[in-house]
């Protein structure tokens, strides 16, 4: 009996020991690999920079087969792609295709490890290579939400209209779908990235979310995306969002309408500023929008806001009055002469800009 117990303890101890050794060896290998990559990065940054600075006939240096070198090169190349646009970016993308690194990334989309598949999808979104399109389309059916959205974004970055329907279906936003899908409800930020990557082509779907999403947060994200797209055709929708009682929607819509310089939004912006139930940050955003749109009708309301007791609202109102110039500048001069120290300080700061 004692002997059996002893053997069991021995086997258990050996098992735990082997496991610990395995974990330790893995950690050491990973640390060693990371250090190796860090050492190689300057060398590869130099190689990529020299390749891009040389004439069109230049080639990237051939890469060794070992993993750490290819990973280091890939990481530096992705960093360069983030920073570059134009012909150099295209040249680097083609060189990465020719070196087989894009193929490596598409292959990683089949990995059993979720983290690897997610990273591959994100990297392919940066590379924007059409060679990955087939695998990315397959990735839209991945079991992991982040991989699906990553692939959708990568396909959106390619700018090929024929993928649009599949992308929107994947993120659950195909405009004909009555109820928004799971992806959009649970990952609004990632969905916003996909929609931004689609650009104006995805605007119809964004407009659909901004009015139909059950999630308040998702509606705000959609209005923010619509605002960032700056499409005059969607100004009426932004005006409707501006008038909503959801302060988040109002703020995003005010930013978008300001960027569009939408004069038709002025009346609603003035109502927002006069509404005592609105928090100061909403009134401050409306004030900024009024300054950017540049309608002198806003001067009396902005002048009243300059006398409020909230710093951010006073500051935004003063800056808006300065942007309006003319009657706005006169209002700032009155504030300077008013004898109220804070009004005077905000007015002087705004005129000084």
């Amino acid at each position, binding site marked *: 009996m004692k002997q059996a117990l002893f053997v069991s303890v021995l086997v258990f101890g050996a098992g735990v020991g082997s496991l610990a050794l395995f974990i330790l060896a893995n950690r050491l290998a990973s640390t060693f690999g990371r250090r190796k990559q860090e050492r190689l*990065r*300057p060398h590869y*940054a*130099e190689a*990529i*920079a*020299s390749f*891009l*600075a*040389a004439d069109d006939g230049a080639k990237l240096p051939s890469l060794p087969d070992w993993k750490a070198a290819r990973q280091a090169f890939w990481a*530096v190349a992705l*960093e*360069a792609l*983030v*920073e*570059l*646009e*134009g*012909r*150099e*970016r295209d040249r680097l993308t083609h060189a990465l295709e020719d070196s087989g690194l894009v193929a490596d990334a598409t292959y990683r989309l089949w990995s059993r490890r979720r983290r690897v598949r997610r990273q591959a999808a994100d990297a392919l979104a940066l590379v924007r290579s059409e060679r990955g399109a087939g695998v990315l389309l397959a990735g839209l059916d991945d079991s992991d939400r982040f991989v699906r959205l990553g692939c959708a974004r990568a396909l959106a970055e390619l700018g090929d209209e024929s993928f649009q329907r599949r992308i929107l279906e994947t993120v659950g936003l195909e405009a004909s779908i009555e109820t928004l899908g799971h992806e959009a409800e649970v990952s609004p930020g990632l969905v916003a990235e996909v929609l931004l990557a689609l650009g104006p082509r995805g605007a119809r779907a964004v407009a659909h979310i901004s009015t139909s999403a059950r999630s308040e947060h998702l509606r705000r994200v959609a209005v923010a995306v619509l605002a960032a797209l700056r499409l005059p055709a969607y100004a009426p929708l932004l005006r409707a969002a501006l008038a909503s009682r959801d302060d988040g929607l109002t703020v995003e819509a005010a930013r978008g309408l300001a960027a569009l310089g939408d004069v038709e939004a002025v009346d609603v912006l003035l109502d927002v500023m006069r509404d005592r139930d609105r928090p100061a940050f909403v009134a401050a955003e409306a004030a900024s929008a009024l300054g950017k749109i540049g309608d002198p009708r806003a001067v009396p309301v902005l002048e009243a806001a300059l006398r409020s007791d909230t710093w951010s609202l006073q500051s935004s109102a003063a800056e808006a009055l300065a942007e309006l110039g003319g009657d706005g500048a006169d209002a700032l001069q009155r504030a300077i002469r008013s004898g109220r120290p804070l009004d005077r300080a905000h007015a002087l700061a705004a005129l000084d*800009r």
Partner: protein
Amino acid sequence: MKILVADDSLTVRRLVSARLKADGHDVVEAEDGRQTLELVRTEHPSLLVLDKVMPKLDGFEIVRLLKADPQTRSLPIVMLTEQANEREVLDGLELGVDEYMTKPFSLRELSLRVSQLLEGASDSA
């Protein structure tokens, strides 16, 4: 001409440096704000390519210090920024930034802008 490239990203420094070297310039590199100021004073570059977000001293602070010093006031500066809003651009131009380039950027465009600024600087000298 000697050009100082200041950016905390090694990759960006190398990309910009290689392009400018290919154009025939001498290039020195700085990886943070303090080193940038130090190299401006010791290397006397003809132009500074400056990232707006830098450790130790940010780009705007560097511009302010350089423009306040009669020795470095006339140094042409090209500022690289992430998506800059109008206010930031105006603040930078008021401080004395000569050119703004928003990341992602084109190396060829940077090269052209640098050449134009250097030509302008030598014409006015």
